[in-house]
């Protein structure tokens, strides 16, 4: 299967995250890059933009900007040329999916089909064949498994933002080792500790961010929230928000509640949980 990895306004984080895929040598036997930002390929960037090279999947990485060129060719031309001939288009990362961190409030910058939450139709003809894999950076396993799904012609169910439900239907909260503190509404988290849940005070967006970070661990070993680092919501169209290390509350009640949980349900549960003091959750684990 022939892949074209096209970098636009990108930091290359997705490329380096991809290089962390554990079985990358096997992957490279099953797929060929006609162009890649770091790996050797038979074609140069100049070849790609000037010629018509056979390709099965177009991978777009980075924010799109009006008038941006690669090897002196407008990216619109490149995307249209390859978008037409490929079976599938994958937007690799939050920037290509939703605009991401480089939007800078400029209307001339956007993701392939979405600008944050708003859908646009600049490349409407390609919506049917697009799969958005958001994340900043992407998780290598999610990208690779999606590519294998395409190769094996497995049908991937997509959510409203064109992300594979297999990976994006769950929340980051799912599988976090600090869940017990969340369950019992213990809001005593302090940085630098094994204990505590960052949702109440320190900005963790895990309970309402879609992804699999605590299910498929990062680098096969860990995740942000497990070490005490709040989830920054990087798979969502709204990434990045502001004041990321703080939880916005309105008179003590978190502004953003866990995905799909109605306010009254959350508050009732919170009220019940707060009636009890469970000793174990107020003592140091390793103490």
């Amino acid at each position: 299967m022939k892949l074209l990895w096209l970098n636009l306004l990108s930091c290359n984080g997705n490329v380096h995250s991809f290089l962390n895929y554990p079985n990358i040598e096997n992957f490279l036997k099953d797929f060929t890059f006609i162009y890649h930002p770091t790996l050797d390929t038979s074609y140069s960037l100049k070849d790609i933009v000037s010629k018509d090279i056979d390709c099965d999947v177009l991978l777009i990485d980075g924010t799109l900007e009006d008038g941006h060129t690669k090897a002196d060719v407008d990216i619109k031309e490149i995307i249209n040329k390859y978008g037409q001939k490929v079976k599938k288009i994958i937007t690799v990362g939050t920037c290509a999916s939703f605009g991401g961190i480089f939007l800078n409030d400029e209307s001339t910058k956007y993701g392939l089909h979405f600008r944050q939450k708003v859908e646009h139709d600049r490349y409407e003809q390609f919506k049917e064949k697009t799969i958005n894999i958001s994340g900043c950076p992407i998780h290598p396993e999610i990208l690779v498994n999606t590519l294998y799904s395409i190769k094996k012609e497995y049908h991937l169910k997509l959510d409203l933002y064109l992300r594979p439900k297999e990976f994006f239907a769950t929340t980051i909260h799912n599988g976090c080792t600090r869940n017990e503190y969340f369950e019992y509404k213990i809001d005593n988290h302090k940085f630098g500790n094994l204990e505590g849940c960052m949702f109440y005070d320190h900005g963790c967006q895990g309970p309402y961010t879609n992804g699999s970070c605590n299910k498929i661990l990062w680098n096969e070993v860990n995740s942000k929230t497990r070490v005490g680092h709040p989830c920054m919501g990087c798979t969502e169209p709204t990434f990045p928000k502001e004041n990321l290390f703080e939880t916005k509350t309105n008179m003590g009640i978190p502004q953003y509640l866990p995905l799909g949980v109605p306010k009254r349900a959350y508050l009732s549960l919170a009220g019940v949980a707060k009636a009890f003091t469970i000793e174990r959750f107020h003592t140091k684990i390793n103490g």
Partner: protein
Amino acid sequence: MKTKKELKKEIIIQAALELFSKKGFYTTTIPDIAQSLKMSVGNMYNYFKSKDILAKEIIKHISHYLGEQLKSINEKEISTEEKTKQIVAVYFETANLKPEMIDYFLRVFLSNREVFKEGCEGMICVNDFVTEIMIYFEDGVKNGELRDQDFFSAFGLFMGYLGGMVFLKGENILPNNLDSYIDDISNNIYKALKV
């Protein structure tokens, strides 16, 4: 639709509330309540297994009653200032129409904590009511009408004030009917909490 059993429970609760109000909580017994309803004591225990359980059910009942009223106010598309007034009005209206309810809350629930210490820890049994107050506060802050502050400071101000007024009424110290104080009191509360 409430079941026959639920309706019967409500009748019992109402009778209990009236007796507690007249005779006092500790002096009123289950047989007293049964007799006032012309029920057998055995039948009574089918609905409430003990006086303690009845006591807890009553407070949940009151919380639910007030909670439902507050929920319909919260769901209205009106300003927080107007909501404040309507909440105060509902509270005082309940104090007028069902004085035994507020009476129970102040004189039994708040004053006899040992009765409620198991099964009604913290604010669990008044959950319905407290949840609605939380939502009123949260919406107010979100709309930019109320100042963002610690929940308990605001809660204490609101509830302490209302409870205090009802207590004064109960002691026959207030010269006028509770209704006539609605405007001033809701104004004071709103001014204290707003941005």
